[in-house]
């Protein structure tokens, strides 16, 4: 009797488990198929177990570097940093590295949060321990790719991400406010206290905390990306006020308005060089399957609504959102260019210099932090999207790879991008604690490989 009960229980558990495994969605055979303006979109597939696969971080050993195609060359500009998330180049050529960690204000609201926190803590070094939240200045006066000095430019910041210089005003987009500091060309450190230009939606929760920042070419306005406070509204609609949007901030007064909305987590705000339009990369929603929803690169229209949370890629309704808003879905704009699902683009830089090969001029580099919500990794690289007449004009191609090992471990993960004074591409690598510099020149004898 007892034995038969045991067997029944074991059999039932086995059936439940195998059913669950069978319900795991299969990845698209070719993720490249989703790259471009009109990606194929499978039906939403909500599995029993939310797929979580993160790459264990192993860092870079001495001499190890990412991989670049022939004609390019990559070296470390700085190593041993503290979770560098973005890079910015000052007019005199000094490079600022924003080293930030997550504010860690997200509460445990559901049992799921405990499990996810545990899985993520095993796989990533989120920069959650030790000091950080500062900006480091690198000065490479002779332009040989080896900075002569490294100083702490600003310290004690609150999870900063975006920065922008307009004249003598230096702006830092902390996670909860845009703060202005006085800057004079040549400064290597700022000691003056900052002035808050405007608060930004921060805590409580603060799920997507990175605030991307860019100033208009004439310097009158600042644009700041404010990510959503949830994956898909699971913290309630009231937590999303003024979030999932790009705000336009008047630099003189700090007054702001929502410039565009429905952008789940917009980062890498940049100006397209030929049309002067605002572009961004956006992290779309998770847990609808390995090939939904494509993250994207898009121009941003004034007053535009891009779907989140009600719909994705135009008018595809998200089954998890109630009540729906057909009035908003009706006017949801389809993004310009899919980068593929779950690649997690966080950095964007248009290339207007002439040091890299001809083919890169006028196009956009995108830093893809990499996936967690699919069984085969995607992202974990820097790609290049060619542009013509102000719009993407072809397939994205890999430029900087090798962040992942063959057995699925991560040396590093690319985040923010910038182009330095010499025309080299700079890449912030947060878990690799490195800033990489990609040049067009072939390796010279004596260069570190």
């Amino acid at each position, binding site marked *: *009797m*007892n034995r038969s*009960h*045991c067997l*029944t*229980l074991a059999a*039932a*558990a086995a059936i*439940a488990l195998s059913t*669950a495994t069978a319900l795991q969605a299969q990845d698209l055979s070719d993720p490249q198929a989703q790259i471009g303006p009109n990606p194929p979109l499978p039906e939403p597939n*909500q599995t*029993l*177990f*939310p797929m979580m696969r993160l790459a264990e971080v192993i860092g870079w050993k001495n001499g190890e570097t990412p991989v670049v195609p022939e004609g390019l060359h990559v070296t470390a500009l700085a190593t041993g940093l503290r979770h560098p998330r973005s890079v910015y180049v000052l007019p005199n050529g000094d490079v600022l590295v924003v080293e930030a960690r997550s504010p860690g204000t997200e509460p445990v*609201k*559901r*049992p*799921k949060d405990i*499990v996810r926190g545990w899985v993520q803590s095993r796989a990533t070094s989120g920069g959650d321990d030790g000091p950080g939240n500062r900006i480091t200045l690198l000065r490479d006066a002779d332009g040989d790719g080896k900075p002569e000095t490294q100083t702490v430019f600003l310290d004690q910041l609150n999870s900063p991400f975006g920065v922008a210089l307009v004249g003598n005003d230096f702006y830092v987009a902390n996670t909860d406010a845009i703060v202005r500091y006085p800057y004079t060309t040549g400064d290597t450190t700022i000691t003056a206290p900052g002035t808050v230009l405007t608060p930004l939606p921060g805590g409580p929760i603060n799920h997507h905390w990175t605030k991307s920042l860019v100033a208009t070419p004439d310097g009158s306005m600042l644009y700041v990306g404010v990510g959503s406070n*949830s*994956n*898909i*509204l*699971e*913290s*309630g*609609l009231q937590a999303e006020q003024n979030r999932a949007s790009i705000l336009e901030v008047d630099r003189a007064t700090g007054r702001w308005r929502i410039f565009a909305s429905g952008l789940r987590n917009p980062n890498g705000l940049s100006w397209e060089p030929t049309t002067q339009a605002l572009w961004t990369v956006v992290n779309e929603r998770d*847990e609808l399957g390995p090939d939904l929803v494509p993250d994207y690169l898009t121009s941003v229209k004034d007053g535009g609504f891009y779907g989140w949370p009600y719909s994705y890629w135009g008018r595809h309704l998200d*089954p*998890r*959102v*109630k*009540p729906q808003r057909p009035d908003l879905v009706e006017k949801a704009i389809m993004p310009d260019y899919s980068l593929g699902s779950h690649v997690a683009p966080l950095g964007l830089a248009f290339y207007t210099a002439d040091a890299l090969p001809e083919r890169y001029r006028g196009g956009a580099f995108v830093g893809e932090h990499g996936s967690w919500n699919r069984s085969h990794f995607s992202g974990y690289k820097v790609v290049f999207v060619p542009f013509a007449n102000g719009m993407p004009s072809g397939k994205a191609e890999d430029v900087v790879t090798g962040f992942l090992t063959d057995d699925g471990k991560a040396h590093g993960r690319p985040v923010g991008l910038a182009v330095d004074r010499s025309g080299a591409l700079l890449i912030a690598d947060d878990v690799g604690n490195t800033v990489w510099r990609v040049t067009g020149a072939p390796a010279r004898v004596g260069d570190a490989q």
Partner: protein
Amino acid sequence: MSSVTMSAKHVAWPPLHPFLACTVATCLTGAMLTDIVYASTAVIMWTDFSAWLISAGTILAWLFGVVGLIEFGVRPSIRARRYLLPYAIGNLVVIVLATINMLIHTRDAWSSVVPTGLVLSILTVLALLATAGFGAFVVSSDRVEVIRS
């Protein structure tokens, strides 16, 4: 005369594992109620309640199942009780339904409840009710048993 016979018997402990069932039933019934409230209001707070209640109920249900199996193993007198098989199968159904429902409730927002989660919550409670009926026989049958040498 009869005192010799009596000394060979004693009043047995009732089965212990059903005590755990009270908490399991409370959590899973509560989850059905919070699911119903969420399905009719779409106020997200209720999904958090459901997720906690179902997770707690499911973990305790597994504990209940393990303790029950051990008790069946070490106490032959309990194995002999009436309606034991439907009681065991009923509990197994509860455990399987609650486990699947816990996973469904890890989804975000509306589809963590409607429709699959809500249906599973109601089925779980129905299975609990049916099982409780058989459980009454398992718990309350004759508790005088012969002490084994």
